[in-house]
């Protein structure tokens, strides 16, 4: 149980640009346990998305290894299911066909596929919209479809790249509650990236604050708040105290990144 599902082992990622190298992430080490919801927060440009893309296998580290169940990730890894900010749904496929894409690719029989997609579609609350196309859905429903598509592929971990950033504040709050409910139901491990401290506090078991470029772990908070997803949590003293602490830390980094000298 305490075994790490994902282990960042001293990761450094450099990008070669014409002007010279940029070190996006430096000496980054972190463990994510099975069943844990871990959120990385940090100023824009701190390398959060780079980290996520390395876990998914879209990018490879310049040095160090990312281990999934003890094995280094060397290629695009379907066991690390990605939820993209812009949904990345196939516009020519219905909700059901989008959800069944992964199982179909992986040779799951039509009958099993249909049963499973129905189960997951019901779980994310899209029952009745199976035959709709993504273009007919609202932003929140599109993101539910994207979540559903990844869940149907049965990944070991969900990678969420600011999945709710494009949604309006109210839809966003509801989607956060929904995600918590679904994750609690399925026991999924989640690596979540956001620049919203509230979002991080509502969702996470653990929050990692990153420093600005080169991105590295600045501080790790264990969050003991109740994960009901209820709005009231956000009014407790405990919540506000943590929010203040984390904001102070992030603010420092934002100022550094904007070249504002902190007093």
């Amino acid at each position, binding site marked *: 149980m305490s075994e790490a599902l994902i282990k960042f082992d001293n990761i450094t990622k450099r990008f070669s640009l014409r002007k010279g190298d940029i070190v996006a992430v430096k000496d980054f080490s972190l463990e994510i346990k099975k069943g844990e919801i871990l959120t990385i927060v940090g100023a824009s440009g701190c390398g959060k998305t780079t980290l996520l893309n390395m876990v*998914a296998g*879209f990018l490879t580290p310049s040095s160090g290894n990312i281990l999934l169940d003890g094995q280094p990730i060397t290629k*695009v890894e*379907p066991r*690390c*299911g*990605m939820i*993209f900010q*812009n949904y*990345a*749904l*196939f*516009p*020519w*496929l*219905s909700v059901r066909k989008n959800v069944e*894409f*992964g199982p179909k*690719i*992986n040779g799951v029989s039509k009958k099993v596929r249909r049963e499973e997609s129905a189960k997951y579609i019901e779980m994310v609350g899209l029952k009745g919209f199976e035959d709709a*196309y*993504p*273009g*007919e859905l609202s932003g929140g429903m599109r993101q539910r479809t994207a979540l559903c*598509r*990844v869940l149907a*592929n049965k990944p070991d971990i969900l990678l969420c790249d600011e999945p709710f950033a494009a949604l309006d504040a109210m839809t966003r709050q509801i989607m956060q509650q929904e995600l918590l409910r679904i994750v609690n139901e399925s026991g999924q491990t989640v690596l979540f990236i956001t620049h919203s401290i509230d979002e991080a506090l509502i969702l996470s078991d653990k929050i990692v604050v990153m420093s600005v470029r080169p991105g590295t772990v600045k501080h790790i908070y264990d969050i003991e708040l109740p994960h009901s997803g209820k709005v009231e949590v956000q009014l407790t003293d405990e919540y506000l105290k943590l929010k203040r602490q984390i904001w102070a830390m992030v603010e420092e980094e934002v100022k550094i990144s904007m070249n504002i000298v902190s007093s």
Partner: protein
Amino acid sequence: MEGKELGLWRSSVIGAIGLLVFLSLWEVLVRTNVIDPFFLPAPTQVIDKAIQMTTAKDAVLLTDIKISATRVLTGFLLSVFVGVPAGLIMGMNPVIRAAINPIISIIRPLPALSWIPLSMLWLGIDEQQKYAIVFMGSFASILVYTTDATMRVDPILRRAAMNLGASPLQILRYVILPGALPDLLTGLKVVLAIAWTCVISAEMVGANSGLGFRIWTAKEWSDTGQVLVGMISISVTVLVLDILFRGLERVLLPYQRKTSGT
């Protein structure tokens, strides 16, 4: 008012009125001998001619349309079968794209007409020569349209498919092809009209059947009525093909009808 779309019904009615006025004016100008019917026969005379050409026992007009259409479709489909797969590969692979692009840039600006001398030397004036002209006239355009359509598929969709476990071949089949299809069909529709101009040119220069041949021989006999019947037949056939193509789009792209605007 300006720039605003009229409804389908109103624009059709106004269009029909416009056409009617144009034809009436033409008819009157010929019937009053302002225009010599030898140079330009009246619309009713053209219709008479068309009826004559379709009801005579050899029904020469219908045969010509069938022959020309067969040539166009054969050459066009050959182009599609070669050009679309090649375009997909070029769209996905930057190295192959860089290697092929200069060759295409040389071939593409050549009018189909300029291929007639070589094709006649190589193939005579058989059917193959007509197919070759249509092929050469449409191939480069199909290749370019397909390459562009492939490259316009959102790269995030490829990533999503990879993340769900798709192999490169599966990405091609389940992401690139359906993703490129709307732009591809638009391109093919344009090229199909180009293919028609190719076959008409080829038939005028060296053939003994087809619409182009019919128009050309009619000119030799100063039969302007027959020339006009031939020309109008081309317009009508292209229009009919265009409507069929639109039907094909509706069948292949059902999601576009439901989600127009996004």
